[in-house]
């Protein structure tokens, strides 16, 4: 129902704004001097204000990277905290220039809602967590037949859960909660055998458990949740900038360019690195994008490469300690593949 409402709202939004939405976001952004970026109001590791009130997180850093690519300054970005309901309207109405709010890339959103996705900054998927002390010997979701599962109401999570158990001909008993914290508390108190939400969320939930080490995230991923930044349809130039900011972050990691060594790397003899950093003679890569030729240098100086962003916000440098897994580079067995910059 919520989904239907979102679609209806989004379609209305499209109908009203298709004619008026500006087709040249880059000029508008340059004129106003900053990017307006829509983020989650509070999702551990992805976007949340820190103690000083500055936004931090993986989704937040993507917007900073874009700001650095355009202005050479990662601070020229303003953030709008958005709920799941209002995120698409905000993008359609021009209130924000880019939506970087753990949004799953689906065909419906790409077409009917009029978005264009720039890439997948985090491959997520719905998973299960169980209390290993309570259910010893369970190491696969297929052994959860008859289990009571804690789940948040009104989300696609709930639907995926039903689909999965139906497809595998298993019985289950959903214990549905309106709020995230309620579901956490109920699971921690032992009211359910298993807890289901996106895997990145499971790690955050585990931090709040009274005995985190007893809880195990099961290997099965029952849905694909490719999360990435999105822009409005109908502005290819702006989409290119979002897309290539993402690829630049990946290529920098692949080439070993980091926040610390980016200045040294400029003197590298490696032609790939020279191309990426825009120090090749008569390069036009940056200017063809409508940016400065030092755009990648600016991005890396502001946020570091993709690996650094990942580790700082959700990986080993954060309390979440999420492993790279499928978010590793393609060279290391993951799915992150940066299109060549040349």
């Amino acid at each position, binding site marked *: 129902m919520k989904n239907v409402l979102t679609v209806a*709202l989004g379609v*209305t*939004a499209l109908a*009203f*704004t298709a004619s*008026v*939405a*500006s087709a040249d976001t880059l000029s*508008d952004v340059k004129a106003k001097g900053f990017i307006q970026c829509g983020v*989650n*109001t*509070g*999702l*551990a*590791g992805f*976007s*949340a*204000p*820190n*103690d*000083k*009130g*500055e*936004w931090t*997180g993986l989704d937040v850093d993507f917007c900073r990277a874009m700001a650095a690519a355009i202005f050479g300054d990662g601070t020229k970005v*303003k953030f*709008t*905290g*958005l*709920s799941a*309901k*209002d995120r698409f*309207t*905000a993008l*359609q*109405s*021009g*209130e924000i220039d880019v939506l970087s709010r753990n949004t799953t890339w689906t065909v419906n959103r790409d077409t009917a809602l009029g978005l264009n996705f720039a890439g997948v900054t985090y491959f997520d998927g719905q998973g299960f967590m169980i209390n290993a002390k309570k259910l010893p010997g369970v190491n696969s979701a297929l052994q959860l037949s008859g289990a009571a599962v804690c789940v948040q109401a009104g989300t696609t999570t709930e639907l995926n859960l039903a689909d999965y158990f139906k497809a595998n001909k298993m019985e289950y008993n959903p214990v549905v909660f309106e709020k*995230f*914290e309620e579901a*956490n*508390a109920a699971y*921690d108190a032992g009211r359910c055998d298993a807890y289901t939400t996106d895997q990145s969320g499971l790690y*955050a939930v585990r*931090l*709040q*458990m*009274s*005995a*985190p*080490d007893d809880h195990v995230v099961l290997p099965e991923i029952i849905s694909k949740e490719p999360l990435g930044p999105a822009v409005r349809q109908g502005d290819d130039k702006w989409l290119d900038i979002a897309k290539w900011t993402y690829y630049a972050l990946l290529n920098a990691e692949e080439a070993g360019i980091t926040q610390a060594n980016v200045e040294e790397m400029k003197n590298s003899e490696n032609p790939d690195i020279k191309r990426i950093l825009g120090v090749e003679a008569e390069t036009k890569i940056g200017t063809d994008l409508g940016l400065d030729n030092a755009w990648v240098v600016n991005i890396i100086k502001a946020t570091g490469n993709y690996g650094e962003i990942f580790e700082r916000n959700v990986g080993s440098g*954060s*309390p*979440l300690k999420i492993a790279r897994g499928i978010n590793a580079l393609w060279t290391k067995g993951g799915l992150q593949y940066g299109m060549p910059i040349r």
Partner: protein
Amino acid sequence: MQEHDLSWVRTEMALAQAAPRSEVGPLAWARKSLFATPVDSALTIIAALALAWALPQMLNWAFFNAVWSGADRTACLTTEQGGFLPAGWTGACWPFIDARLGYFTFGRYPVDERWRVILCGAIFLALLVPLLTPRAPFKRLNAILFFAVFPFIAFFLLLGGYFGLPYVETPLWGGLMVTLVISYVGIVTSLPLGILLALGRRSKMPIVKLLSVIFIETVRGVPLVAVLFMASFMLPLFVPPGMTFDKLLRALIGVALFSSAYMAEVIRGGLQAIPKGQYEGADSLGLGYWQKMGLIVMPQALKLVIPGIVNTFIGLFKDTTLVLIISLFDLLGTVKQSISGDPTWATPQTAKTGYVFAAAVFWIFCFSMSRYSIYMERRLDTGHRK
């Protein structure tokens, strides 16, 4: 007439004796108030048991077992959770509040500019306290400063962009500051607007009356959440792109109009309680409409409905939490956001600690308002006591 022989006439008052033991002292009080009937006794015992069961747990959690200092989540974790506290420990995690206090108070207001909010708060208090103290002089000047001048001071000081102060846009405002700004604006506009609407609704002029009734009934008939939602998500679709209305401004207008409609009905209740003789008396003195209302009717009516007015204020204060719907972060919003979004402090105790803190802050404000209203009622109670 026959004279009686009065053999003894008492010439002085009997000496007062101490009350019997059974009527004074804590025991007698307990018997009278707590154990007067079997039902009373049962209720007392049940209540005492409930307190004895709950109170130590609450005190232990909030004070004796609580953690008071620490740099991150490990301070509030037990050994099995990766910290140093004994297994099975539960207690409040106060360093979470300490670390985030600035965020809870100012939201994302730039750290270097926060002195402006503090200064604004200080001016607010310096004007409010004498205004609420009956003995303090210069009431008229004080009221003008508080209701008419202070909003401008606050506007320029908080928003900036003038007199060399950097501009701080409202999306950066948050926390307790937003709660207080919305409440102040709501309270200061709803009382005069409410009085006008109440008078309008009782007016003999048909158009004024009709408009007042339509306004009050329309606003009261729609949930505040729905209005905030519409203003936030639908409005941008109907105006040209790039043209944005300030979210905080939308919330302020919504809350102010809402509380005015409720206030109008509270005050109308007071107006209805004033006997007709008061109106006639004022008319017979030759007073005009505004003189009659201002000098005779309103002072009595307002005094009667102080509890209702303060009730509306308290409701308004707590309704400010609804602005979370339009992604404005008031005190409760910032607490919620920190619980779900800050992995540095993610522990089993963080959510409880955060909500208890928010509840305590709201309680302090609402309880103070309530006590002050009781004080004012007693002070103004000049003739209706039974």
